[in-house]
């Protein structure tokens, strides 16, 4: 296990490195010039050149890449061109905002999704099952931004229960987490249900029932554990999607998180910001996949990590 972990972590290095190369190339080769945005419409060419030089953007691309890489290894993510602040400082402020939303939405999705999936499967064909599955169908079909707008109109504007936008505390978190977690909960519910139905039909469940175990023990201890494998895969893959969802939710609910930071960075061709954000994303997605793989072992002893 330890050898496997070390190897996996070492393997992450080329992956992350590859991501930085691709990101660096794409953003630098895309049309758009951060200096033009920085100096504005009216600056004379001398000033344009001076600013370009000051940010090191007149150097060859390869030199710029290696200096970026060198700085990252020293723990320096550079300065934001547009916001004139260290990228690390911007990230440190934005990451918790997104993480909070991601964790809340994911928590909601997993609890609601798994519980309703299990209940649905255990009572397959019943009215409960049908209501749950209609709900799940709605959840998968309704776009998050629309649900977000609807929640704002209903909960904030009409009922005055929660503030429409902003950040800082639970009251700002509930609506975006709901809007974002709904689709994920639906997907998790559907996956859990079908996976459970498959497991319930297997021999070892019949054996467990034959031993005289209560239905609760059969479902939650024997069946669920096995049924969770595809759910864990789904959750692992979902993390990347979650950041994408956060981008939209942060726009709708005006949350100053990573998504907003990245969009702003991309639109203003703020290279250091985009590179910093994507570096963080690459590392975290790689880590989440590793965690999902480790989770398999605990769920299914037949899987061995070597």
């Amino acid at each position, binding site marked *: 296990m330890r050898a496997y972990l070390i190897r996996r972590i070492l393997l992450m290095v080329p992956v992350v490195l590859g991501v930085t190369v691709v990101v660096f190339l794409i953003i630098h080769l*895309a*049309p*758009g*010039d*951060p200096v*033009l*945005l*920085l*100096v*504005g*419409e*009216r*600056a*004379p060419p*001398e*000033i344009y050149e*001076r*600013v370009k030089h*000051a940010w090191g953007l007149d150097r060859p691309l390869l030199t710029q890449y290696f200096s970026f890489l060198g700085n990252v290894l020293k723990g320096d993510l550079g*300065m934001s061109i*547009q*916001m*004139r*602040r260290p990228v690390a400082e*911007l990230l440190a*402020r*934005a990451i918790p905002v997104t993480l909070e939303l991601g964790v809340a939405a994911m928590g909601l999705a997993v609890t609601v999704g798994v519980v309703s999936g299990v209940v649905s499967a255990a009572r397959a*064909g019943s*009215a409960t099952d*049908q*209501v749950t*599955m*209609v709900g799940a169908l709605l959840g998968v079909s309704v776009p998050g931004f629309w649900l977000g*707008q*609807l929640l*704002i*109109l*209903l909960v*904030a*504007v*009409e009922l*005055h229960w929660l*503030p*429409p*936008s*902003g*950040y800082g505390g639970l009251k700002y978190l509930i609506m975006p987490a709901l809007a974002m977690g709904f689709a994920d909960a639906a997907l998790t519910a559907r996956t859990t249900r079908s996976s459970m139905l498959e497991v319930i039909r297997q021999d070892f469940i019949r054996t467990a029932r034959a031993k005289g175990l209560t239905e609760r023990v059969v479902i939650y201890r024997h069946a669920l554990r096995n049924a969770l494998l595809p759910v864990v895969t789904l959750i692992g893959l979902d993390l990347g999607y979650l950041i994408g969802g956060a981008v939209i939710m942060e*726009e*709708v*609910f*005006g*949350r*100053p998180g990573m998504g*907003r*930071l990245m969009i*702003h960075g991309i*639109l*203003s*061709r703020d290279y250091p910001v985009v590179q910093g954000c994507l570096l963080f994303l690459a590392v975290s997605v790689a880590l989440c996949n590793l965690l999902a793989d480790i989770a398999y072992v605990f769920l299914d002893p037949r899987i061995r990590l070597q």
Partner: protein
Amino acid sequence: MSLFRNRRLRLIVVGLLSALFVLTLSFGCAGKQAAGPGSEKPKKGGNLTMGFDRETDTFDIYQMTWGSGQEYVYESLTTRDWDYKVVGSLAESWESTPDGKTWTFHLRKGTKWHDGTPFTSKDVKRYYEVMLDPKTAAANALDWTWIKSMDTPDDNTIVFHLDSPFPNLFGKTSNSYGSIMNPDAYAKYGPDGTKEYGTKIAIGTGPLKLKEWIPGDKVVFERNPDYRWGPLFVANKGPVWVDTVTFKTIPDAATRLAELETGNVQILANVPVEHYDRVAKIPNVEVFKEPAFGLGYLAFATDKKPFNDPKVRQAVNLAVDREALVKSVFFGLAQAAYGYLPPRTPEAYQDTAAIRYDVAAAKKLMTEAGYPNGFKATLATQNRTEHVRVAQAIQPMLEAIGIKTEIVQYDEAGYKDFLKAGKQELFMRQYEWDNADILQWFLYSRQVPYPGHSRWADRKTDELIDAAESAITPELRAQKYVELQKYLIEQSVWSPLWYPMAITAVRTDLVGGFKPFPGGGNVVIFDLWMKKNVK
């Protein structure tokens, strides 16, 4: 599926869906209630929140290319009153020598910086010296190159020496991009210091101090308790009534409206025209419409075939139905444009005879230019909703005279790059500026390729601009600019389309003392007070 076999279930589902639909509809149609009578006497305290889609890029005036809120932190030598006339701010009075080459400004006594140190003429001198120092690479240095040298005979007097008369001097000293920062603070925390100037530290003489700025979230200003020198045109010349002012950044327009509806935001600037009806229906909200200082126009790469032919440009000009455009794209919340400068600028010139809608005349010109069957061209635009819709509305109008266009969209950064690289043919642009010198920025030959995106390099234009910018009196300057505009219209360098409108929504049940400022851009803070504190 057994889903829809269950009738009760089917009813529930259909019922839920219809309820959702009805709810969605009804939110958009809430009735308007009259604002209740409140106490009309200003009172101290409370927190004012305003909603914006975009935040300032910095509070460092040297580097600022997009500012908002700087007029609260800093002050300039002069400012504008409710009639947009130049009035004193940091300077109380001024005079010039008859040749217009020496200007003496008498500064207000007793003015203090936010850090408590007195404001002196030496600060002003140093501030401009740093601005004009090439090492600073100030984005706004161009505005101040008319300063040849400065004298400070005493702490309250600053003398500017110029090489030639500069009638636009007050245009510069009254602009918030020309506000004055504390040079000591800049030296200490500026680019050579800890680099926190402009993001965390901003020292001015204004009525508000920068308290906190969370990028992408909000900028919070607090009252400057020592402020005593409010401009003449406001009632309250002392510290502002409110405790804090927050600029909240909310990118989504619908969410901004929701914040206004809940009262969390009390003033919403730049309401998009498509949301006007919804805002006007919100109870206790008053909506102010002001002609903004700006122009949306269609421009040409004037050095490229077929747009190097003035007849083709004139034909395009005649093919556009501006009134229809204003009605359909802007719901009437804009003005059709018949000139190159917003009507409120003193140099403005409108020509409804030359810039008109006349398809027959346009077709005739196309034939004369040698394009009886028209031609194909790209119509480029930035991906702003309004601009894309204008482009879509113009497309069939141009097709009517044989010009088949393909609309290409770019984001802001990509668009500027595209224009600088000279890839444009027909393209949409909009400027927001209150001064005739905008024509210098875009149409002076030195400015090609960027920002001279029309690629207009023309000796007569240069001569007229030079004459205007060095005229002795503002009247003479205006006269020269009118002459220039007549020439530009004759050459059809641009096709002016619309003058935008600034729409500001105010919760009059929560905020007292609001009065719209000409152009709609700035919210004058001095007389604003909170009727009820929201937080």
